[in-house]
């Protein structure tokens, strides 16, 4: 796809899209949305990039290694958050009793571990989408 218009517009759109996705992720616990939606948006933006600028550049932006680390990292993050709960409060995935910061209801920094988990989920979903997409277009028909 060597259409100048699409390339430019993509260049303009992608930052907004990603910003929006990240916004949704970190606002997941006070407004509609959350890790899945946000992660999907971020992932889509990167897919769009690959579609427009081709696989090679896409690789540069988000390499195979990165995606792998993100893959494992998402779950690792989730598990670590859970384990903190286990070690402090004696239960896996404990939220406030494990001493996560309560914050003020309605703020970004509230809800204890929920935002953290949301971020983990977001990373996970985004990276999964991208790597699945890459796998299919690498080996696809």
């Amino acid at each position, binding site marked *: 796809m060597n259409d100048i218009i699409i390339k430019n517009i993509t260049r303009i759109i992608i930052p907004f899209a990603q910003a929006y996705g990240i916004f949704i992720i970190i606002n997941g616990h006070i407004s509609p949305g959350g890790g899945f939606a946000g992660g999907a948006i971020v992932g889509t933006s990167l897919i769009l990039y690959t579609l427009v600028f081709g696989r090679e550049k896409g690789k540069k932006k988000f390499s195979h290694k990165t995606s792998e680390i993100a893959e494992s990292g998402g779950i690792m993050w*989730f598990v670590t958050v859970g384990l903190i709960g286990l070690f402090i409060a004696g239960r896996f995935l404990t939220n406030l009793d494990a001493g996560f910061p309560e914050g003020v209801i309605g703020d970004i920094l509230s*809800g204890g571990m929920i935002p953290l*988990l949301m971020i983990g989920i977001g990373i996970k979903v985004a990276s999964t989408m991208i790597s699945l997409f890459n*796998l299919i277009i690498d080996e696809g028909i």
Partner: protein
Amino acid sequence: MRKILSNSLFIILFIILVYGIFQMPTGANINAPAYNDIVNHYLNSGVSETNASNIIAAILADYRGFDTLGETIVLFTSVVAVGSVLRSTKYDKEVRDHE
């Protein structure tokens, strides 16, 4: 013949299920059996327990956080599985030539 048979099967199934639905507690109001004390607990004291104003997020990440973990594992697994199918066709080609 077989098509007619299968279609009639589907019709019967559909009718049975719709008939079943008519016997179900389908009232879309807060008296439905599904809308029980658990829901009320979430709605009333969910915020104070988790400090998150989005109850769905609270349930998703806190009350039923373990489900969410499982689901991230599903994603991970799907990536690994798809990788195991799609990565490195080299061997595959050899096999096809070999056979």
